[in-house]
């Protein structure tokens, strides 16, 4: 059997008396696109933070291509090829769009190479026109794009996207979905989203989180049809 790209074994995160993520077993194949859904507080973002080293798991292991990265520093995990767009736009507000992407591209290779990647990425995400603008002055949706651009410029093997379509216009959402499918040609992805339509546009397999644990993991249509999912997730969303 091939080694999964990413694997979590009994990953657990406790804060004081609260268990945010409880014994999650999770595996992702190379080049797979996976959606993570679940109500607010289900532990999705906490799980992402454990994957990227921002939180050290209280118990369990996290493996990247079979290599144990439990408790590694965020920068070490990033260097092993994991890029993340966080839930709240996490960009360099005081720098220009180009500089944001350049800093992401510049970690390895020559400066010339970094400039080339920067140019290509800006073009690919149609950000060239606003490349000189200061990111802090851009609209919310545009800042999301800048962050995605930075993640791509980093050239990761695995891309984690936490609510990439939040706060975007309908047209932007369509573009984002197209982009995700395009990224998936070359990269593995995990996407956290609430928007079911959006998930239908992109997903094959969906993992549902609830109460810090995995409720169900299946094909998108079957998950949608699952009454348990409807109860915890859609019911919650309606409320």
């Amino acid at each position, binding site marked *: 059997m091939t080694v999964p790209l990413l694997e979590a074994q009994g990953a657990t995160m406790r804060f004081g008396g609260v268990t945010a993520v409880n014994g999650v077993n999770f595996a992702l194949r190379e080049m797979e696109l996976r959606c993570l859904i679940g109500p607010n507080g289900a532990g999705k973002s906490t799980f992402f933070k454990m994957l990227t080293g921002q939180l050290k798991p209280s118990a369990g292991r996290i493996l990247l291509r079979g290599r144990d990265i439990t408790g590694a520093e965020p*920068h070490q995990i990033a260097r092993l090829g994991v890029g993340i767009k966080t839930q709240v736009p996490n960009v360099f507000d005081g720098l220009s769009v180009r*500089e944001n992407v350049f800093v992401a591209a510049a970690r390895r290779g020559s400066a010339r190479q*970094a400039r080339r990647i920067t140019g290509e990425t800006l073009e690919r995400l149609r950000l060239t026109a606003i490349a000189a603008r200061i990111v802090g002055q851009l609209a919310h949706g545009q800042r999301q794009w800048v962050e995605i651009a930075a993640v791509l410029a980093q050239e990761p093997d695995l891309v984690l996207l936490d609510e990439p379509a939040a706060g975007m216009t309908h047209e932007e959402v369509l573009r984002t979905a197209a982009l995700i499918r395009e990224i998936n040609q070359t990269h593995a992805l995990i996407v956290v989203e609430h928007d079911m339509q959006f998930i239908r546009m992109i997903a094959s397999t969906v993992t549902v989180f609830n109460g810090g644990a995995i409720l169900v993991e299946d094909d998108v249509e079957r998950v949608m049809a699952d009454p348990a999912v409807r109860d915890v997730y859609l019911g919650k969303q309606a409320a």
Partner: protein
Amino acid sequence: MTGWASFAAMVAAGLVVLLGLPLVFDLFGLLQMTVFAAMAVLALSQGFIWGYGGIMSFGQTAFFGLGGYTYAVAVMNMGDSTVPVLLSVLLPTLFAALLGYFMFYGRISDAYIGVITLTVTVILFNVVNSTAGDFYTIGNAPLGGFNGMPSVPPLNVPGDPSSPLDPQQTWYAAMGALLLVYILLRAVLASRFGRVVVAIRENETRAQLLGYDTRLYKLIVFAIGGGIAGLAGCLYANWGSFISPTVFGLATSAQVLIYVLVGGLGTLLGPILGAVGIQYLISVIGAQEMVNANLVLGAVLVVFVLLVPQGLVPVVQGLFRRVPGVRRGQVAEAAPVEVEL
């Protein structure tokens, strides 16, 4: 490109000051400008680590004092000043690296970095202050406790201790050092390393998630700042032929912060102008007998922070660029590196 143009203009202006001042100033004016230049180097070190590295050091004077004492002790033992100058940069750099390791690898938060640096400089003050006895002599150099070390030999022509620099040459050395530090910092900031440093100031988490070991970057920035402060200490000890523990004192630390804030955080020109302006103000205040010196200085600071909170240089830049001024404390909105002076 704006960056290059402003850089060239600044270096040219620096050279004019370097070469021109001895032609128009008398000896006293030149000596006064020499100490202003030394303090401007200190202000640059604070401005660099704080304004660009986002590291809030309350105790940059620790490295300043260490540099001064290192120079004094070394030159008294060696005679020739060349190696002591190098040591006065090297030792504070190493000390800063060590302290930086302690702080940044210990995940100590910003406000606490302020406390630790403050504490370190207060400890150094207490320790050096109580070295009055004969016991505290390093080679030929008694540390002298509170009284400090008088008659520190001046800089000399490298390799020739019998040719000490005269005041005009000392000016060239101090101002030349200031100019060099400025050029060095501009180069650092323009490099890929500098971009990352500023990016870390903007958003440390993002930089980590992009694969940068931000602890290492901050440590390097802090060490560079320490070395520059050490150089400033060497120039200062050399200017007055004297060094005493008050260089470690809280009053000095606070003054350096004020230089940077008044001149403009997130710029390099600002700290230089702030240092010269404030020191000039202080020396003018001391020459009058009408009003208590503290009262005037305090009032100036309060008014300044209320009316010109972003510092002088950003305000002037704002006037020229017709861009709304950037408020300090919201560094996140500071202008990008390439257009800054």
